């Protein structure tokens, strides 16, 4: 029996099947290839891929046990495919969003026109946890705040794409996008030529170009770009070192940098060497103990002052977290209309704000069908999935919401699309999302693909790796089939 014979698309939007046994045209070639694969052969390739990930140290560390076990992120060998026409729409939609978000950030850290004209209630923005008054009136290079973005997208039962989050701070995962592709090419070398899959490996070059583009003008022919990591114990350290290696730049920790005369230097064996652009994988809070968290030993004292003086550039800029606030998220379509006079190409998920008394009432009375999220949490934490919740959890959230309404939003529970995924020896439908990676420099570019995250637990809607999620290679095709 072939691998996908028994597959049930179920009552969901299935990425691969229109109905039982009926494959979408852009999956036809892949379907045929998988149907011709013996289960044993498939299992073999699967374990070869897992072994390669382990050998290469593409792992994250589980600290729950004393040994500090390293695990690989579960990788599902069945790729997710996006046809050209869909991708064109996604690309246009995200580009539009990106332009609006950068204009929004520039605006709220200067004239605050959008607040003055009451398009967005001022208090929602100014009370956002990651709004940085320190940045008001501070120009940033080329007026770009978010240089690197990883928007989360989902599809509903009809297959409509929605943007769920914008992630304009330090989105992670792009290394998995790139490594997943390498792994797939190794496991199924013959699949690619015939399928017409667009390559992704120029991402790191594009990233470096962006980081060089925003460097302060100082006469140096090649700007000195570094990546600032919290260190090897950070769960994304693999990605940090991967990106630094691919770009050929130095990876630095806070202790490697020092500020003198509002200039940032790194300590080398030959003395101090000035740094122009810092791709920081450290949240605002930890960047500079003189300005933000005093207890941060990961940051660089004086960095913010050097940044404000224009002697060093940061990617992303300080203060972009305000756009990640889930309350502010609600207003992105309004930003698009306000700044660009365009209609949003990609839809937002309908969002209710607990800070609005009417909407708050609706939320607390309908917890069972809603997803409640804390405005500033990520990684799947601080979240209530109504339909899967217990009465006690709902009571707890109700109390939390009423106590601090500004900190909560709610959205209808989306029936996320599913994708055949290999679980427990067979293919079964699992919910997926999509995280494309957007770069914003001289122009906006989006690597054709993305990280498809899959909730490997049956029925689960939470795709985060910290919550038992895995990932898939994501193919964007040159054509529609």
């Amino acid at each position, binding site marked *: 029996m072939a691998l996908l014979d028994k597959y049930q698309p179920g009552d969901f939007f299935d990425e691969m099947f229109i109905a039982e046994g009926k494959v979408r045209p852009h999956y036809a070639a892949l379907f045929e290839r998988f149907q011709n694969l013996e289960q044993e052969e498939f299992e073999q390739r699967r374990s070869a891929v897992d072994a390669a990930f382990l*050998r290469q*140290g593409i792992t994250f560390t589980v600290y729950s046990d004393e040994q500090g076990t390293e695990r690989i992120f579960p990788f599902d060998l069945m790729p997710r495919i996006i046809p050209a026409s869909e991708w064109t729409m996604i690309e246009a939609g995200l580009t539009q969003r990106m332009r609006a978000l950068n204009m929004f950030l520039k605006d709220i850290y200067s004239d605050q026109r959008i607040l003055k004209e009451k398009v967005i209630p001022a208090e929602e923005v100014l009370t956002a946890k990651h709004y940085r008054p320190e940045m008001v009136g501070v120009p940033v290079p080329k007026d770009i705040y978010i240089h690197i973005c990883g928007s989360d997208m989902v599809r509903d039962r009809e297959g409509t794409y929605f943007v769920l989050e914008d992630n304009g701070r330090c989105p992670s995962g792009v290394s998995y996008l790139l490594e997943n592709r390498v792994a797939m090419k190794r496991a199924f070398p013959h699949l690619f030529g015939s399928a017409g899959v667009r390559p992704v490996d120029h991402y790191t070059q594009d990233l470096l170009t962006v980081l060089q583009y925003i460097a302060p003008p100082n006469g140096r022919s090649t700007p000195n770009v570094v990546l600032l990591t919290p260190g*090897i114990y950070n769960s994304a350290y693999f990605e940090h070192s991967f990106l*630094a290696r691919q770009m050929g730049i130095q990876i630095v920790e806070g202790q*490697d940098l*020092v500020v003198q005369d509002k200039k940032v230097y790194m300590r080398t064996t030959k003395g101090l060497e000035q740094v122009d652009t810092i791709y920081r994988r450290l949240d605002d809070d930890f960047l500079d103990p003189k300005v933000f968290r005093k207890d941060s030993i990961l940051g660089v004292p*004086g960095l913010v002052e050097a940044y404000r003086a224009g002697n060093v550039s940061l990617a992303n800029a300080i203060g972009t977290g305000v756009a990640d606030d889930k309350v502010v998220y609600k207003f992105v379509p309004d930003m698009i209309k306000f700044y660009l006079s365009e209609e949003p190409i990609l839809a937002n998920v309908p969002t209710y704000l607990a800070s609005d008394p009417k909407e708050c009432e609706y939320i607390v009375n309908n917890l069972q069908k809603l997803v409640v999220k804390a405005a500033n949490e990520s990684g799947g934490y601080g979240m209530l999935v109504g339909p899967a919740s217990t009465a006690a959890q709902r009571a707890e959230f109700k109390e939390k919401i009423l106590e601090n309404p500004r900190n909560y939003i709610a959205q209808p529970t989306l029936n996320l699309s599913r994708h055949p995924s290999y679980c427990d020896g067979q293919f079964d439908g699992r919910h997926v999302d999509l995280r494309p990676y957007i770069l914003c420099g001289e122009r906006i570019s989006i690597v054709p693909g993305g990280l498809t995250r899959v909730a490997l637990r049956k029925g689960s809607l939470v795709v985060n790796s910290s919550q038992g999620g895995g990932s898939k290679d994501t193919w964007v095709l040159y054509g529609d089939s």
Partner: protein
Amino acid sequence: MLSRVADSLYWMSRYAERAENIARILDVNLQLMLDLPKLGPEEQKALWEPVLRSTGDHVDYDKHYKETTSDNVIDFLTLNPKNPNSILNCVTTARENARHVREQISLEMWEEINRTYLWMKSQTLKKITRQGPYEFFTQVKNASHLFQGITDGTMTHGEDWDFIQVGKYLERADMTTRILDANDEIFVKRPANKFQTGGTLQWSAILRSCSSHDAYRKFYVAQVEPDKVVEFLILNEFFPRSIRYCAGSLNEALRSISGCKDEHFSNMAEKLTGRLVAELNYSALEDIKTVGMHQYMDEIQIKLNNIGEAIFQTYLFSPPLTVIEEKVEEPKPTSKQSQKQGKSTTGA
């Protein structure tokens, strides 16, 4: 290059070399025992104590074990997580340092050191005994050779590579002094040793633990004699594990880093290394004998330690800089030199 990167490369290299040397020492002693009549507890103890002294861990050992037996020593020096210098911990530390500088070293280097680490993690004492410890030690040594070979063949031979050489030769020189020092009584007491036949066997064992048995034979075309063993392992100009050769290579690597000409020095590390090289170049066996083996090895160890400290001060340590107006926060603990050394200065 970042000071922190140089630091990690240096320690990565030292610990990889240390893992290999511990495997060598253990391996040779186990083989030596095969050639001896069945040993009682006292005799076992007498054979293993020099080994523990040569790794500098005898004090630690006594905390964990009551008796000095082959099984206990193997346990302690191979897989014991509590011994900072067990092979497992050396490999783990080397790999951890490699992970720190993952983007600086070649993909092949990383994969090899990671492979060794994963393999070490999968080992148990039972497995080692079942397959024969010889097999295990061979694999440890081979892993180290493979790693060094891959390093030579895949990494740019620039400053970063030089720091790896510095770590390697400093560690190797240090290990050779320890091996000689720990066994110094056999040079002093000679045939009065309790193993009547043990003398030659033991000198051969020492040669083998430095992979120098064949090289020795070729060089002297002679029987294994203690004087010649000492001369070979300390003063030979061309054997890659002799102290003189290691000091010479260390000197070259340091000068390659700074670009400073021979006969001159630009920092303390170069000055001390140059002095040691000159001393070894112009020494003869008689000079060692006059001072006494133990004393001589002790002095060299102290000199190597001082060189290590000077390298640390010159290149690896980042002193807090005084920034105008406010003082900079102390960097994270940087006194790794003493912290990571993990071995006492005097072996005996």
